[in-house]
């Protein structure tokens, strides 16, 4: 590059950064520069923070300049596509490796209670992501109220246990069935709606269910939620510290330890997540799974081929809801306490973000996205109130950098000869 060109580029970058700084000044001068505080008398007071505004503006200037001068020129045009294929290829090895680590995690030295709890949390989101992937990734139905079925599962278990004294192992399938039933009930009238309408209606359903849970105090305890939900037993053997013959520790002759239950919960959610994965992988190779994907690609063509669109969509919706129901029952038994606060829209949004960031339809991508998002969120726990801010910003940045998610290419469900790459740009995104 010649010197004048370089100088010109520098000049343009400087100008651009100055403009960005000006915008930043406009954004921050009021919202950051003037802080409102409520005084003891209830009146509003203003505090000025011009220094913070100046620092923020300077930061924007530097970042923008750095973007223009160093980051952008080095971004190879084909970089993202390369990463996609790399990840797909690595997925062949990476998937089993990840599974192996997950299987032995509780016994890796240095893994304590905290790490296992984090593992349980991540796996819950992995499971929810895989469940929602059936609806959004395969069938192309945009569901913004997925958390509603998670809530149905959790409350089903809590209420069945509370009122009828049913055990976790009976309630788990029931919670799934009830969630699927609600999926069918809510899905039936609205699944013929076009894309964004479906999105807003599912969001509305999610909110309706939450508001009902919040206000039906006599049944659900309202905002106080339900506490004292029975903890799971090892197929009838409770995890009790007494160590008596009827307990898990006593039966197997182990030293009673609180970590038994955590390890058991960890394997329980791992098992549930793997079940979700297994069903999703198997079903993709089934006629119904192919029909879902076909529906995502072109609904009209499906009709012309004699596929009953409503029923096909309903099965996807119900199956996705069922897995959310399982996860909900697990959540209830793990926490021993649930309240409507755990089932707000932001949960649906995060699960959907995991699915989209992972790459629609890609099992391994979703697992990685859940680990990155939820694990990363935990990693930044010292940021306190800035944590959600970073989380939201990360969502935007990842989406802008990789709109198709981590794994964009689609793996065929059946092959005649050898596998060829299906580019992400060809894969449909569904109208629903």
């Amino acid at each position: 590059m010649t010197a004048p060109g370089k100088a010109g580029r520098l000049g343009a970058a400087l100008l651009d950064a100055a403009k960005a700084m000006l915008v930043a000044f406009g954004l921050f001068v009021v919202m950051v520069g003037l802080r409102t505080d409520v005084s003891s008398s209830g009146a509003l007071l203003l505090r000025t923070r011009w220094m913070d505004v100046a620092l923020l503006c300077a930061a924007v200037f530097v970042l923008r300049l750095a973007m223009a001068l160093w980051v952008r020129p080095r971004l190879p045009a084909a970089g993202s596509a390369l990463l996609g294929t790399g990840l797909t290829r690595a997925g062949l090895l990476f998937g089993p490796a990840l599974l192996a680590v997950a299987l032995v995690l509780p016994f890796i030295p240095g893994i304590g209670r905290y790490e296992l709890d984090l593992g349980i949390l991540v796996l819950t989101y992995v499971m929810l992501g895989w469940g929602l992937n059936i609806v959004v990734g395969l069938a192309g139905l945009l569901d913004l109220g997925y958390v509603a079925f998670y809530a149905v599962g959790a409350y089903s278990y809590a209420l069945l246990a509370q009122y009828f004294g049913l055990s976790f192992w009976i309630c788990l399938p029931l919670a799934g069935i009830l969630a699927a039933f609600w999926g069918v009930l809510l899905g039936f009238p609205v699944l013929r709606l076009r894309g964004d309408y479906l999105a807003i209606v599912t969001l509305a359903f999610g909110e309706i269910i939450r508001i009902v849970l919040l206000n039906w105090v006599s049944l659900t305890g309202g905002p106080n939620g339900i506490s004292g939900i029975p903890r799971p037993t090892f197929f009838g053997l409770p995890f009790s510290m007494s160590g008596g013959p009827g307990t898990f520790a006593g039966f197997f002759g182990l030293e009673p330890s609180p970590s038994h239950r955590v390890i058991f919960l960890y394997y329980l959610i791992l098992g549930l997540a793997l079940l979700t994965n297994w069903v999703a992988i198997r079903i993709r190779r089934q006629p119904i799974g192919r029909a879902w994907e076909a529906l995502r690609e072109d609904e009209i063509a499906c009709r012309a081929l004699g596929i009953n669109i409503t029923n096909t969509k309903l099965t996807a919706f119900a199956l996705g809801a069922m897995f959310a129901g399982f996860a909900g029952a697990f959540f209830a038994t793990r926490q021993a306490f649930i309240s409507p606060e755990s089932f707000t829209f932001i949960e649906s949004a995060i699960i959907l973000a995991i699915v989209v960031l992972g790459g629609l339809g890609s099992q391994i991508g979703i697992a990685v996205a859940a680990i990155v998002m939820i694990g990363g969120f935990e990693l930044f726990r010292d940021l306190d109130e800035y944590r959600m801010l970073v989380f939201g910003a990360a969502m935007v940045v990842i989406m802008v950098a990789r709109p198709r998610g981590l794994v964009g290419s689609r793996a065929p469900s059946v092959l005649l000869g050898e596998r060829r790459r299906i580019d992400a740009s060809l894969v449909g995104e569904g109208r629903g």
Partner: protein
Amino acid sequence: MSGATEEAGSEILRVEGLTMRFGGLLAVDAVDFAVQRGSITALIGPNGAGKTTVFNCITGFYRPTGGRIRLRRADGSVAELQRLKDHSIARAGVARTFQNIRLFAGMTVLENLLIAQHLKLQKATGFGIGAMLGLSGYKAAEAEAIAKAVDWLRATNLLDRADDAAGALPYGAQRRLEIARAMCTGPALLCLDEPAAGLNPRESDDLAKLLAAIRDGTATASAPTSVLLIEHDMGIVMRISDQVVVLDHGRKIAEGPPATVRSDRHVIAAYLGEEEEA
């Protein structure tokens, strides 16, 4: 197969008094025609004549305002298509292609053809459970479906592209794939919406041969299939059609073998100044 030959010559599709009104616009006005079993029938007419509307009524994408559309299948059963909607039309035995190709672009060619056999495969899965557990009944059904797909891939000269994404195929190949996909549903009547649009002369030739083979049942081991098509390319219409129905302004103005229709003065008047490739 013998049943089909016995009845050859009888009508497979009878359209009577078909009327379609959009608001105040009368798009199709009491049209009658028939498609003979084992024939290729072309529906032609100038732009805006109502061809596509008739086509969409037959294939269930519109519900006609009035009239009857009866499909008489090889086993003698009759389906009243005007009463059926959406997917039930395809189940009754009518398959179609689209003017602006509608493939499942992100799925492979083979997957496209398996989706076309969805109904049969879905039955074999035993409500999804048998297939989930990998029971043999489903495996056999899938193998059979793949064999049928391979037959059609061979017939449409797409065998080497079976594992490519449908959207990655060249235009002409996509048209052939759409026909193969429609045929995989095992239809009694194949409806094609401008199958030659955008094809080069050599591809058009191949298409003509393919359609004749479909009609005669020589394309694959499957039964002869009657064909109804809309086409603008008069060359191909006159070459392959056994029967031509001409529409203009929503009415039928002529019907008969290509030679008769070509010399019909109403037809000449309707087409005056356009479409003189023939």
